């Protein structure tokens, strides 16, 4: 049976083969080409490299030519004395960032949405976006200077207020590690993260606000009953994506902020892979760690997406 489909006034004949249709609409497929090439080169082609996790890698034989060793490196990782510490650290930092960092751009977007002075709103937006463009290297250099126990601005200020106050090595104190990691992450990313919510906010029908005003709703009520529900799908999608990255605690920031005294808190999967893989040359081992992380992430995203689809009808697919 043939069925004529109509889309914006144009007829599509399903009897046409895929190839014929592709040729007919080749201009549109051509637009896809750059993305396909990009994925092929940078995402799919390098994937053969994961084989190294199952091989005893030799420089001269390369990945494909080296001998197979099965799951040896996975077993080594699971039996590694640092395994649980690293997994725990990764989860703790990621969850802290998620719980503290995830709502921050939503809150900022909601507040920015309420600002009526356009110039002030733009100024705040610009200032909040700027840190996103500063590399972690610069941010950590600034933090190191500001928080230094040797004439750092924060310690100077404390001692100006209380001359008897002793210097605090903020970056080296385990008790300060999590607050610094989370706050600096929020500072750097909150503005950028709010853009997508601000975009979602523009899609809310203004008539809803007008109707609410006629019903006597105040600004908090409008925010709670119209604005927030209006961006729930966006929040849901971003939450699913964030959960999939739960084992990605943020390499640059953590690596640069690591100190000997906080190593037991700051060694995460990413930093471990760098140290064991690149610095010590255990490529197979660190690739096994990377695969471990990717598999967990994939399981998480599939699970969370499924739960979300069933409970809130928000899902990635």
């Amino acid at each position: 049976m043939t069925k004529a489909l109509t889309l914006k006034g144009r007829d599509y004949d399903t009897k046409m083969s895929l190839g014929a249709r592709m040729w007919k609409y080749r201009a549109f497929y051509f637009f896809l080409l750059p993305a396909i090439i990009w994925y092929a080169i940078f995402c799919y082609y390098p994937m053969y490299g994961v084989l190294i996790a199952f091989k005893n890698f030799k420089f001269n034989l390369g990945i494909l030519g080296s001998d197979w060793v099965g799951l040896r490196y996975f077993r080594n990782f699971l039996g590694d004395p640092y395994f649980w510490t690293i997994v725990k650290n990764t989860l703790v930092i990621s969850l802290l960032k998620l719980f503290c960092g995830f709502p921050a751009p939503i809150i900022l977007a909601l507040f920015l949405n309420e600002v009526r002075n356009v110039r002030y709103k733009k100024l705040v937006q610009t200032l909040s976006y700027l840190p996103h463009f500063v590399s972690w290297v610069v941010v950590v250099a600034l933090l190191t200077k500001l928080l230094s126990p040797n004439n750092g601005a924060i310690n100077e200020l404390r001692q100006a207020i209380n001359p008897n106050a002793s210097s605090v090595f903020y970056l080296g104190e385990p008790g300060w590690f999590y607050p610094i990691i989370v706050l600096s992450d929020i500072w750097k990313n909150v503005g950028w993260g709010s853009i997508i919510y601000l975009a979602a906010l523009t899609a809310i029908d203004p008539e809803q606000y007008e109707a609410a005003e006629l019903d006597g709703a105040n600004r908090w009520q409008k925010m709670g009953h119209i604005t927030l529900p209006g961006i729930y799908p966006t929040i849901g999608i971003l939450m699913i994506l964030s959960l999939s990255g739960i084992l990605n605690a943020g390499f640059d920031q953590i690596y640069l902020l690591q100190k000997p005294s906080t190593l037991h808190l700051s060694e995460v999967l990413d930093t471990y892979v760098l140290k064991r893989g690149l610095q010590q040359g255990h490529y197979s081992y660190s690739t096994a760690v990377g695969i471990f992380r990717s598999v967990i992430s994939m399981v998480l995203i599939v699970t969370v997406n499924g739960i979300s689809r069933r409970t809130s009808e928000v899902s990635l697919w």
Partner: protein
Amino acid sequence: MRKLSLFLVLVMLLGFSAGVVAEQKEYTEFTEVTFLSCWNGGGGGFPQDVMGNVIAKEIAKKTGVIVNMESIVTSETERLNTMFASGVMPDFVNAPYWSSTGGEGFVIRKAAVEGMIYDIAPVLDQYPNIKRLFEVGIAKDYKEFDVFNPEYEGKIYVIPQQTPSNDPADITNWAYGVFGRKDILDALNVDPKTIDSTEKLYDLAVQIKNGGFKDAAGKDVIPMGTSHNGWNYWGFLDGFNDGYHLSGYRMQEDGSIVSTFFMQQTIDQVLFMRKLVSEGLMDVEAFSNTDTMGKEKMAIGKCALFSFHAPYLVDTMRDTLYKTNPEMEYVRVGPLKMTDGNIVTAVEKVGRTGSPVNFIAESSPHKEEVLRFLDFINSDEGRLLARYGIEGEHYDMIDGIPTVKPELREAWAEDSSLRKNLGIGVYEGFIGAYDYDSKYPVPDDQKTQWDKMLDALRADVPIVQFDKVSVGFLERGYPGMEEFRDLSSTIDAEAERRRAFFAATDEDAIKIIEDTRQRYMDAGQQGVFDYVKEQYEAYPNKDELMF
């Protein structure tokens, strides 16, 4: 008449040799070879124009080779690994080769065995100046176990560099130690030579802390500190060492052999450093100082006591603190005495153990050119050119000693980059079996104030030399070594040690060290110890061995 004959013969000989020199081939076509100095920050020693400086041009004329240099600003091991794994290699590389069992040396050995490095054995006889580097300046155990590693099966992959001649005068004395700000020591009325024990060092740090001394910026000084990444905090802990040794192994009273990490001295060192950190005597940032941070602190005399080596002290301070605040000169504190009463100083074998090495990529199309360059630069002519420049232009031979022209000497003392940018001194890194100091000792009247300052700092800690084989080399044949390394490779004893410095209590610090020891044991460390013991007992001439 006899004298006249002799004179004529000499004139003829000189004329002949001059003719030979005049007939030396001068190249007009040049080949560019690529070179990687695989040393973190090694590019700091390069001239601004690496291919067009005066010495590079002179070398090109003599060899037809122009060396295009590149360096790294990352970990040496990391770069070696990525280079070999990617297969993208320059024509030749200079890298650390402290041993063939760990760190950079392990990676080089793996690459050599796996065919990434060119075997020079078949052509070595054609390059007598390179061949000499395997005969002079390397210790016998280093030569047997590392340079000619048994796994190489007679092939030669690495060319030792920056090794001394057999004359002790040519051994570089790095003169490590603790250096104190003289104005502070004077104010405390402390003779720095009397600080010869860990206890006295601690007391001095406490006095400094309570003294209210200021740095050049007017802020409080920190009693003790280091340069980048904690280098070299060991200087404050050397008083716990148990004497002169060549290896990290020790024989216990019960006859067993262990490494020092498993001995009480490690705990003592960790607890002492923890005490310094927790009492505010040690710069808590020292262990994570960047190079810039370390030099900033040095430039303002931030720490009353610094620990590193003397050339670093003089080179860094001469253009900074000693210009702005000459009264803040640093002098040697101690030297400290070890538990056996000997002073802490450098222990050397006859010949160097562990050295920088050059190696040529198997994939290089310019192997012959690289060898020609290395052979030339290691010739007498090349050595003179590398260190002193061009005769008549940069130096004159006076009484057989190359003497830098006075006007250049003054200018270079004022600005050391002038010499470097000419390329003078830059190519010394390609040379081994140094004989400069024994062959051309610098007369006192030609020494700069910085040379004299360095001499004085070195005089306090003369090198102690032993012609022995290190017990450390006995572990080499252990059949379970690969498995042990595989299982223990993720244990970072140094990181754990540093973590212990910041532990909340002594008990916590001890636990960190004990946990780390246990991890090594779980990975099979005892098997290594037992094997070394077996080898030690089976060694035919124990007098030749040294722990």
